[in-house]
């Protein structure tokens, strides 16, 4: 039996992510537990999300394929770094973002309201994952896109997906 968090972890390994920074959210607890157990990457645990933008940038400069795992509140904390480091220099990073305030989640609808508009304003392409069947292909494709475009690309993870269980 695998949770959605397990599926996302499997997909990140399969996509070739080899450097990963994380800051927890309750709904990503299993995902981050799995990230900590994998040997496919260098894993850095953050204190605030924007530093992860810089750490991932440094890793990319040496040839790594980096991902930054965080909540969408952390995405908002990271906007200056995403703008003046990632976008200004042309540095790819796969942003794996828990979508607080998406449908069927409580307490953070205000953050949910502005998450996609902020990404659109930044010119960061984003893909919402609500369906287990789409996890592997979306994360693999988003990783190719970020590396090819040399810009961050975001994958937004819905709560029901992360909590889902299946084979």
């Amino acid at each position, binding site marked *: 039996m695998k949770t959605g968090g397990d599926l996302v972890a499997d997909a990140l390994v399969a996509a*070739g992510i080899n*450097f990963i920074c994380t800051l927890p959210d309750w709904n990503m607890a299993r995902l981050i537990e799995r990230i900590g157990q994998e040997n496919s990457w*260098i894993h*850095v*645990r*953050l*204190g*605030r999300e*924007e*530093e*992860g*933008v*810089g*750490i*991932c*940038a*440094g*890793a*990319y*400069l*040496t*040839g*790594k*394929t*980096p991902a930054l795992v965080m909540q969408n509140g952390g995405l908002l904390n990271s906007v*200056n*770094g995403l703008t*003046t*480091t990632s976008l*200004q*220099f*042309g*540095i790819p990073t796969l942003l794996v973002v828990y979508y607080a305030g998406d449908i069927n989640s409580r307490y953070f609808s205000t953050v949910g309201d502005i998450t996609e508009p902020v990404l659109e304003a930044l010119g960061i392409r984003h893909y919402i994952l609500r369906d287990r069947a789409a996890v592997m292909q979306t994360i693999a494709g988003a990783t*190719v896109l970020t*590396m*090819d475009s040399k810009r961050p690309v975001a994958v937004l993870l819905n709560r029901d997906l992360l909590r889902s269980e299946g084979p």
Partner: protein
Amino acid sequence: MKRLDCLKAIAGTVGDALVVGSAGGATVEWYHLHPSEGNFRSRTLGLASSIGLGIALSLPQRKVIVLDGDGSLLMNLCGLPTAAWAAPPNLIHIVFDNQVYESSGSSPTATAGPTDLVAIAKAAGFPRALWVHDVDAFATAVADALSAHELTFIGAKVEHGIVPGIASPTMDDAENKYRFMRHIENLEGRKIFGSGYPDL
């Protein structure tokens, strides 16, 4: 103690160490004194230390030097525990503490008050963290860090003031990125661009 004199004292000694500069005057002076394909200039206040950490963790066989300022470090203080926990032994974090936000009008930072950045680095878990108070001690501290195999933080209290006659580097940010990455390809003897993903 002047920042420029500190940088002059190490410009000939850093070898092939990779150098990440913060968005501030130290980086302008460093690019002038030590032009190198192995220099990278951050544009986000606070993130030079994070970029240096990412490089150091990814290239454990290379020495990485971060040239930071007090204002920049104060904007990313949580980066100190992150670096101390990850503990790359090849990372040297140098902070020139002039007690002002020099690049943005020279209003004071908290280090003009009670804040001690070396004490913060020690408390964050840096195994080596020290203040230096003259140029010789600075050069010795950097030489020691380059020969040691331990995460190091060096604080240098310096006078504030931008040195006249040193122009800001004209290199475009994307150009800086590509030149730095080509330098890594040459140093490491491997391809970065054009590897990993199939051409379709």
